[in-house]
C-alpha cells in the first residue's frame, strides 16, 4: 500500500501545480484592481535568529525572504508590497510570547510566519488566535489543533506523519520484526518517539530498546552499544543536526554495526549530505529517510520544470554567499507556506482571517508548491500530511538535479 498512493498523488499534484500557476498568474494581473489599499502587508517573521533552533531560523528565513522578494517583484499581493517585520524568539517560549505580542499589538502585522518549533508555537497560539492573525508555522506537534489555533497552519510534516513513514519503512519495506530507536534529546525527535513506537507495533515489529543522546554530543557509542545488545534487525534514528547524524554513522562503523538498516525522518534526508563530510558516504546506502515528494523522483518521471529544482536554483541565486550552509528542503516548505498564504489572500481579496482560514482549508491543494501537494481540512491544519511524504533510500543517491530517489519506484 505504501506504493499505491504516492504515484497517483504525484500525478495529480504536478497537474494541479500547473493549473495553480496559471490561476495565480491571472490573479497577479488582476491583483491591483482588487486591492483596497496600497499599504504594505506586514509579515511578522517570528523565528529563532538565536539560540538552539537558530538553524531552522536560518533556513526558514531564507525561504520566506525569497518568497517575499518574488511576490514583491511580481507586484505584491493585491497590489500591496509585503514587508517583513523580524522578531527573534531566541528559541525560548517566553521570548516567543513577548515577541508575538509585539508583532500583534505593536507592529500590527497582517500575518505571521513561525515559530518553527511546537513548544513556541503552542506558546504563541493564544496570542495570534485572540488577535485573529493568520499564521504559518513549522511545527510538528499534534497538540496544535484547529481548535487551539484556528488561524494557524503548519507546513512541517507532523510527528505522526513522519513516525508513520519511518515505522512503515521498517515493517513494510525492510519487513523487519524488531527495531531499536535512537533519538537526540530535542523536542521534535522526542515527540516523534511515541508515534514511531505505535506504528512499529501496529506493523508487528517489537521495539528492543530506546536510547537518546544530548544534542551535538561527541560520541554515541555507548547508546549504540546498549541498543546493539538487544540485537534488533533495524534501527530507527532521529538526529536533527548533521554533526549528530555524521557521528552516529561513524560510531556505527566504529562498533562494526554498519550493516544495520536505518530509518530516519525528514532531517535524515536533509542532513545526510553534510553529515557525509565526516562520515563514510558508502554507509548511507543502508539509510532510509522520509522526504516531501517534491524533493524526490523516480526514473522515468518528467524532470523538466521540476518546481523544487527550480526553487533551489532561485534560492541559490538569492543567497550566493551562504547557499551551502542552507537546507533548501526547510527553506522550501517555508516558501510554500508563504505562497499558500499569498494565494489565500488573493483569492479572498484581503486579509480577513476567517475567509483566509476557510479558503486554505478547502483550496490549499490548488496552490503551486515546491515541496509537494499541500492539503488542509477543517480537521487538520497540517498542510504536509502523510500523502506529501514518501520514504527514500540512501539520501546521498541524488540525481544530477539533486532530487532523491524514492524507495518505492518500480
Amino acid at each position, binding site marked *: 500500500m505504501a506504493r499505491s498512493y504516492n504515484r497517483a498523488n504525484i500525478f495529480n499534484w504536478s497537474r494541479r501545480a500547473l493549473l495553480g500557476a496559471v490561476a495565480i498568474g491571472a490573479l497577479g494581473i488582476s491583483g491591483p484592481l482588487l486591492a483596497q489599499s496600497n499599504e504594505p502587508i506586514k509579515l511578522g517573521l517570528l523565528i529563532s535568529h538565536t539560540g538552539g533552533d537558530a538553524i531552522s531560523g536560518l533556513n526558514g528565513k531564507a525561504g520566506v525572504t525569497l518568497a517575499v522578494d518574488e511576490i514583491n517583484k511580481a507586484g505584491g499581493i493585491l497590489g500591496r508590497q509585503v514587508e517583513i517585520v523580524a522578531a527573534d524568539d531566541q528559541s525560548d517560549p517566553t521570548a516567543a510570547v513577548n515577541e508575538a505580542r509585539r508583532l500583534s499589538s505593536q507592529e500590527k502585522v497582517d500575518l505571521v510566519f513561525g515559530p518553527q518549533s511546537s513548544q513556541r508555537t*503552542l506558546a504563541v497560539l493564544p496570542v495570534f488566535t485572540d488577535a485573529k492573525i493568520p499564521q504559518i508555522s513549522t511545527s510538528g506537534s499534534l497538540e496544535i489543533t484547529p481548535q487551539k489555533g484556528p488561524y494557524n497552519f503548519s507546513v512541517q510534516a507532523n510527528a505522526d506523519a513522519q513516525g508513520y513513514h519511518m515505522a512503515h519503512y521498517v515493517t513494510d519495506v525492510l519487513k523487519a520484526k524488531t527495531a531499536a530507536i535512537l533519538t537526540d534529546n530535542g523536542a521534535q525527535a522526542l515527540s516523534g518517539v511515541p508515534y514511531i513506537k505505535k506504528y512499529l507495533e501496529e506493523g508487528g515489529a517489537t521495539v528492543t530498546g530506546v536510547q537518546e543522546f544530548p544534542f551535538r554530543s561527541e560520541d554515541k557509542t555507548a547508546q549504540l552499544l546498549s541498543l546493539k545488545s538487544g540485537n534488533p534487525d533495524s534501527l530507527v534514528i532521529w538526529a536533527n543536526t548533521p554533526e549528530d547524524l555524521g557521528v552516529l554513522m561513524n560510531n556505527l562503523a566504529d562498533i562494526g554495526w554498519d550493516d544495520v538498516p536505518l530509518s530516519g525522518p525528514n532531517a535524515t534526508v536533509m542532513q545526510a549530505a553534510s553529515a557525509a563530510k565526516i562520515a563514510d558516504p558508502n554507509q548511507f546506502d543502508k539509510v532510509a529517510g522520509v522526504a516531501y515528494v517534491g524533493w524526490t523522483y523516480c526514473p522515468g518521471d518528467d524532470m523538466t520544470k521540476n518546481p523544487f529544482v527550480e526553487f533551489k536554483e532561485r534560492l541559490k541565486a538569492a543567497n550566493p554567499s551562504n547557499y551551502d550552509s542552507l537546507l533548501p528542503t526547510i527553506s522550501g516548505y517555508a516558501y510554500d507556506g508563504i505562497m499558500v498564504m499569498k494565494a489565500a489572500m488573493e483569492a479572498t481579496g484581503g486579509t480577513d482571517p476567517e475567509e483566509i482560514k476557510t479558503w486554505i482549508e478547502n483550496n490549499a491543494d490548488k496552490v503551486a508548491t515546491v515541496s509537494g501537494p499541500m492539503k488542509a481540512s477543517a480537521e487538520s491544519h497540517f498542510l504536509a500530511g502523510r500523502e506529501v511524504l514518501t520514504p527514500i533510500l540512501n539520501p546521498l543517491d541524488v540525481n544530477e538535479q539533486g532530487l532523491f530517489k524514492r524507495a518505492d519506484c518500480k
Partner: protein
Amino acid sequence: MTSKISTGEHMIAARPSTARTGPSILDRSAKIQVVIGIAILVVATVVPSALGLSYWIGVINLATIYIVASVFMGLLLVDAGQVSFGHGAVFGAAAYAVGVACGMHGFSFPVGILFGVAAALVIGILFALPALRVQWFYLGFVTLSAAMVFPQMLFAFDSLTNGLNGISIPFTALNTPTAIGLSILSILSLVLGSLAILTSAIFPKTKLGRRMRVAAASPEAAQSLGISPGRMRFTAFMIASFGTGLAGVLYPPTVGFVSPNAFHLDISILFFFAVIVGGKGQPLGTIAGITLLYMLPNVFLAQLVEYRPLVYGLVAFLVMLLMPSGIIGGIVRWLTLRQKPQAMPALQFSQIVDATQSAKHPVGDIAIEIEGLRKVFGNVVAINNVSMNVRRGEIHGLVGANGSGKTSLLNVLNGFTNSDAGSVKVNGKEITSLKARDVAHLGVGRTFQTPRILEQLGAWDNVQIGLDAKLSPNPTRVSPAFVDSLRDTLGRLRTESIPHGQRRLLEVIRVILTDADILLLDEPAAGLSPEERVAFAGLLRDLRDKLGLTIVFVEHDLDLVARVADRVTVLESGAVIASGDVASVWENPRVKPLFVTVRHA
C-alpha cells in the same frame, strides 16, 4: 587559599554599609532608592494599562517578576553570602507547579500558588543541603549544573509535566482589567515588586538580616554571638526560595504558557547578572539590572534580533569593567565619597555602666576552671598542660608574648577549638565538647584580637547584633542613655571610618550588651591613648563592681593590667610560668623581661 575562598565570600557578601547605617544621609539613600524604585514600578505598570498597550503590559509584568526573583537571589547572595547560579530552577519549579496544578489538574490559581511556593521551597532545600558543606563558586557550579539538569528532568518525567508540549493556561480572569484599569495580574506583580524592593531595603535592618550577614561575613564572630552559620544559610535559602517562588507563580498567568525550554540556564544567569550589574545590596540595583540586561536588549532593541545577545554580553562586561560595584553601587559610592567622613567622637566609658543597674549571676565562686589543658597544632604546642581558674567577679589578666598561647587559650575557653586533653568548666559546666555558640549561650562573650567590626554591617548594626544576641529579657546592663547616644553617633558614621582603637571598644560594648557574665577580651586596650586607658580601666572596674561580671583579658600593657587586674596569669610557649596577684607576679624574674614600656616617658 581557603582564606581566599572566604575572603571571596566576604566580598560577595559586602553590602555597602553606606546604605545601611542609622538615621543619616546614607540611610536616606536607601529610602530614596525605595521611593524611586516603587515609583518606577507604579508608572511602568499603570501607563501601559492606561494606554491599553497589551504588549507593554505583558513585558512590564514579566520584568517585574524577574526583578522580584533577582531581589531574592540578591538577598541570598548579599545578605547570606551564598552563590547560586541555578536560581532559575527555583523560579521554574514554582511556575511549573502552577502550570501542572491549574493547567493539567484544573485547580484554582490560589491553590496553584500554594503548589508553586511549595515546589520552590523543595528546590530551595535541595540547594541548601550542599550549601551546608560547600561554598563560594563550588556551590555556584553545583547549582549551575542543577539548573542545566532541571529542564531535562521536566522532559524525562513528561507524564507529570506534559513534557515538551508544555502547558498552556489562559488565566483570562487574571488578565482582564478591573475597575481601576489594572488587571489583577498587574496589581499582583506591582504589589509583589514593591514589596520585594521594600524587602531588599528593610531586610538587612532586621535582626535576622543582621545575623545572616554576620554569619556570612565572619562565622567565628557569629558563633561567639550564639548564631549558627549553617542554620542562617538554610534560612536564607528558604526565604530566597519563598520570594522567588512567589515570582515564579506569576509567570504562567503572565506568559500564559509553561515549557521546559523557558527555564534553562540563561534565566538563572540573568538573575545573577541583574543583581551584580545593577549593584549588590542596592534597593534600586535589581531594577537597574533587569532594565539594562533584560529590557534593553529584549524590548528596546528587539529589532536588533541576532545582535541582541551581543548587546547583553557587552553591557554586562562594560558595566563590570567601569563600575565594579554595579550601576547603582557605583553611583552611591560616587555620591558618598564626595562627603567628608565624620570622625568618631571618643566614647565616654564612664557613662557606659548605669550605677543603678545590677544583674544576678550564677552561683559558685569559680567562674572558669581549667585542668591540665593541652592543645597542639601540627607540631606546635599551643597550650601546654595549663591549669588555672578564674574566680567569679574578678578581672583576670592573661599576659605573655605574642604566640605564647593566650589567644589559643581564649579560643578553647569559648569553644572555637576543641582541646586535645584536659577539662574546662564554665560556671561548673564542662564545655570542652561544646560548640562555640553553645558556650556563648552559657553566658560567655568574647572579643577578638582583630576586632570583628564588620564592614558588611552598618556602624550601629555592629553594636546592635550584641543586643540581638541578648541572653535574657531583663533590661540591658548598659545605661540606656549611653546606648541611645551611641546609636545616634554611630548612625551617622560609615563603618570604614571607625578607628581601630574604637572598634575594639565597640566590640567590648557589643559583648556586654549580650548579657554575657563572663567576658573574654583579647587585647581590648591596644591602640588606646594613656588617657583612654585610664578610662577603660575604669570601665572594667565598673563591669566588675557594678555588674559583677567576670573578665578574662589578654593585654600587653602591664600598667593597665596592674591597674585593674585582680590576678594575672603569665603564659610562655603555651605554659603557665606564673600566676597569682599582680604584685607577686610582677617581681617574678621570668616575667619581667618579657615586656617593654616606657617608664619615664
